[in-house]
């Protein structure tokens, strides 16, 4: 023999074969704590078909996605478009690469809540039967006329749909100047009155600069691979996205202030969901944007019409370890009942979500591991929300899931395109418990879901869930709660503030417990929740005090009120007015 035989080098990788389109970690599930043993009174049943939510989502090719545009799905909205006290449903639809013959393209859908659990498709009569590659939706009364309007993002021109108050909407995009060039791939959006002038401005996120003719095909580059198999390329490796901020001039038109506001100075991200509220308690709304495979962004409102990204500095850009993540969806709410607004961000498979606890002074800490949320890293998570599902006074969590590659099981049999939903019960003390398996057939059903909205569509005091499912019908998960716990719902009306009070932070005190929540124009994944805030009260049959931090900057207290009802809080009135809750 010539010499001693050599040892192989450890951890070799093939040059040019590393990388992937999507950021994820190699995270494995952390051990589940011992079950609390407490009864869980929540059962979700999918009642979409029986309720009349009949439509089929189109979103690229159902079996094999050639481009990233086909993968991300769309948002949904729970909102009361006709002011009858019943939540209606708006669903954004997509398209496919080949297109459709004239008149055959799928459209968005508006379903009117007729009460008694029934919906009617009023898309055409409401004039919301637009087609295109739709993505996100946000809601807000941009013209302060008392009727909540919609903004819908597209790969192409976005749409600002003015609610006429007579059951119809008008496309006011061109006049408003908020449509974009028509070449962008817009995803997230949120109305926000960033300058506190009482008019809702608009932030639009653009995922990436997608040009189909320039986009490489599956397998062409390392970022077009997933675990060694060719898949659609991106987002990594594709040109970054951008942001647009439109200032509402109060006359139905908007001005693009992306440059002077400092929004467009931030580069290098793939932006999805946007949320707007006052995260640091300084009375001015900030903007947080979940970014895919790049650091997420927190725009701090500088109170002079400009913003500065302080996501990294405040702990909101990365996870606890300082790693970039594939941010998709956002929940915003006070999970630990300390009166501060926290954030939950969903990410890709092989990774954990982030539970960013608001530490005060505008600082955040990712407490996902400690909270017990690092137990399902085999899910690609999208829509998410904090909601007190059992009305015990602690906000629980709902998340929807589904892989991006339909063929993923052929690549790695451990992964699945369709997955069950997840429900976590808030145990208090900053801890959660996975109760998905106890939450009924609506949760255990497997779909590839994306958008999700929270709201109480049947006004029974239990929060329900609306879900977008890729290439299927939507899900309407009715919460069949069996509990004597009390609750209260609050609808805010701005006077000096924007009429829908988007961005307001509400604190409810009951039986010595303090809870906070925010009125949002968008959250979850590119979706819009019920504008009415819902607080579980546990055994407390009375709310002792309500404090509203209005978007105008004013703080207002409302006196105590009885539980199990909806109240209207009008800015400056100092009184809560009980409202009817039609069933």
């Amino acid at each position, binding site marked *: *023999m*010539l*010499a001693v*035989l*050599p*040892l*192989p*080098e*450890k*951890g*070799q*990788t*093939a*040059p040019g*074969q*590393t*990388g*992937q389109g999507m*950021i*994820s*970690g*190699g995270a*494995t599930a*952390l*051990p*589940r*704590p*011992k079950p609390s043993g407490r009864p869980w009174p929540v059962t979700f049943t999918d009642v979409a078909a029986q309720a009349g939510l009949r439509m089929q989502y189109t979103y690229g090719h159902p079996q094999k996605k050639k481009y990233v545009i086909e993968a991300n799905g769309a948002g949904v909205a729970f909102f009361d478009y006709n002011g009858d006290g019943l939540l209606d449903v708006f669903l954004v639809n997509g398209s496919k690469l080949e297109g459709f013959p004239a008149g055959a393209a799928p459209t968005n859908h508006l379903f009117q809540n007729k009460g008694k659990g029934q919906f009617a498709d009023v898309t055409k009569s409401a004039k919301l039967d637009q087609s295109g590659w739709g993505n996100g939706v946000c809601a807000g009364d941009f013209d302060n006329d008392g009727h909540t309007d919609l903004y819908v993002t597209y790969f192409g021109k976005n749409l600002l749909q003015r609610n006429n108050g007579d059951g119809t909407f008008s496309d006011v995009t061109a006049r408003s100047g908020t449509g974009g060039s028509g070449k962008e791939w817009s995803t997230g959006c949120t109305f926000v009155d960033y300058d506190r002038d009482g008019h809702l401005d608009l932030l639009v996120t653009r995922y990436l600069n997608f040009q189909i003719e320039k986009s490489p095909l599956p397998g062409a580059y*390392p970022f077009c691979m997933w*675990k*060694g*198999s060719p898949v659609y390329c991106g987002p990594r490796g594709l040109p970054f996205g951008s942001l647009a901020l439109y200032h509402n001039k109060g006359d139905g038109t908007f001005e693009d202030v992306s440059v002077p506001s400092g929004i467009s100075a931030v580069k*290098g991200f793939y932006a999805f969901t946007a949320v707007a509220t006052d995260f640091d308690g300084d009375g001015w709304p900030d903007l947080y944007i979940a970014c895919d495979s790049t*650091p997420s962004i927190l725009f701090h409102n500088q109170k002079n019409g400009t913003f500065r990204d*302080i996501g*990294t*500095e*405040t*702990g909101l850009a*990365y996870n*606890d*370890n*300082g*790693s*970039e993540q594939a941010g998709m969806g956002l929940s915003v709410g006070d999970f630990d009942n300390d009166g501060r607004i926290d954030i939950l961000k969903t990410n890709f498979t*092989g990774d954990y979500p982030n539970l960013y606890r608001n530490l005060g002074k505008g*600082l955040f800490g990712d407490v996902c*591991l*400690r909270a017990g949320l690092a137990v399902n890293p085999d899910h690609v998570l999208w829509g998410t929300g904090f909601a007190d599902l059992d009305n015990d006074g602690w906000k629980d969590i709902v998340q929807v899931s589904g892989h991006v590659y339909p063929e993923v*099981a*052929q*690549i*790695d*049999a*451990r992964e699945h395109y369709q997955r069950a939903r997840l429900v976590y019960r808030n145990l208090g003390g900053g801890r959660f418990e996975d109760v998905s398996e106890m939450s009924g057939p609506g949760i255990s059903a497997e779909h590839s879901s994306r958008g999700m909205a929270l709201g109480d569509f049947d006004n029974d005091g239990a929060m329900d869930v609306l879900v977008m499912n890729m290439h299927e019908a939507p899900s309407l998960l009715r919460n069949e709660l069996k509990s004597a716990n009390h609750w209260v719902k609050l609808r805010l009306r701005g006077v000096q503030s924007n009429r829908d009070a988007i961005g307001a932070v509400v604190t409810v005190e009951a039986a010595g417990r303090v809870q906070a929540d925010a009125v949002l124009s968008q959250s979850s994944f590119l979706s819009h929740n019920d504008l009415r805030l819902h607080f579980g009260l546990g055994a407390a049959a009375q709310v002792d005090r309500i404090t509203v931090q209005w978007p105008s900057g004013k703080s207002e207290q409302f006196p105590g009120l009885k539980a199990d009802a909806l109240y209207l809080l009008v800015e400056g009135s100092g009184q809560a007015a009980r409202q009817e809750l039609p069933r």
Partner: protein
Amino acid sequence: MTGLLAVTAMALWLQAGPDALSDRAQQLAMQKRYDEAEALWKQALQAAPNHFPSLFNLGFMRYSMGQFAEAESWLKKAAQAKPDDFNSRYLLGTTCLKLDRREDALRAWKTALAVQPKNYKLMQIMSVEYSNGYYYKEACAVGRQAVELRGDAPEPWFVAIKACFEARDPETLNLTKQAAERFPNSARANFEYGFQLQKAGLRDESLPYLRKAMSQDPSYEEPFYFYGSLMLLDEQYEQAVEPLRTALKLRPDYVSACVALAKALMGLDRNQEAKEALDGCARMSPTHPQPHLFLSQVYFRLGEEEKATAEKLLSLRLRRENPTIMESPQARPFPGAPRR
């Protein structure tokens, strides 16, 4: 005169048998006279086409010269020429690995293992490579085989534990328990058991083993880091600081320990100390983005916003310039066929 002698000697070698030719070629190769050595080995192969030493040494010489494709073809022939030879199969596997063909390497090593079924060292190598190739179940199985053969030595246990942990094998905890029982004085064995206990959700049970590991080997940084991280996770910042400081003292370039220490100090609102720790860490690991990322947070807390921004931008730049530092394991090449 010297040249004439060399030519004469060469002529004599050419008349010799393949063994003698190969021996001479080997001497020449050791003198780095590769061309002459190759000529002699090829001469030997003309006389005896399946002459194993010539085939193997040609392969080895090519391997040593970094010519892996050529090495592979000679080593394949060598392995065919001598079916009961271990070394040719082993080296063939190593060559395939150099050619970024991990699966062929593992195939070759499997045949080598058939020749030497008790070669626990090769089993350990295979376990590591199975893991690198995402063949976690196979990595765990062969690792355990090595333990069965050499359970009296700690190293096979540790290789098997790592592989089985990655394979999410339910027996991993038991494996580490056995290792801790077998090697009660080994800090590594106690640490591994404590680590697995924590991963199994038995946090409180894990702590005595971690403490034992720390006291058994005060120069072994891992238990200090892990113990400190556990305290940090539980927001017991005060208890986290000292073990993390020790881990960092033992390994000054241990960025994870440094960041954890900084986070514990920030939790205690001791931001100046956190800054000092991160500064030291940034000096030790100048291309690592993490110290700068957390320095950005510390400066922000200290009210020095310009420095916070500068550190953020530096961190971002370093992240882009050194993507592998923070790259996820998912980015490694993955086997073509699905793993079930």
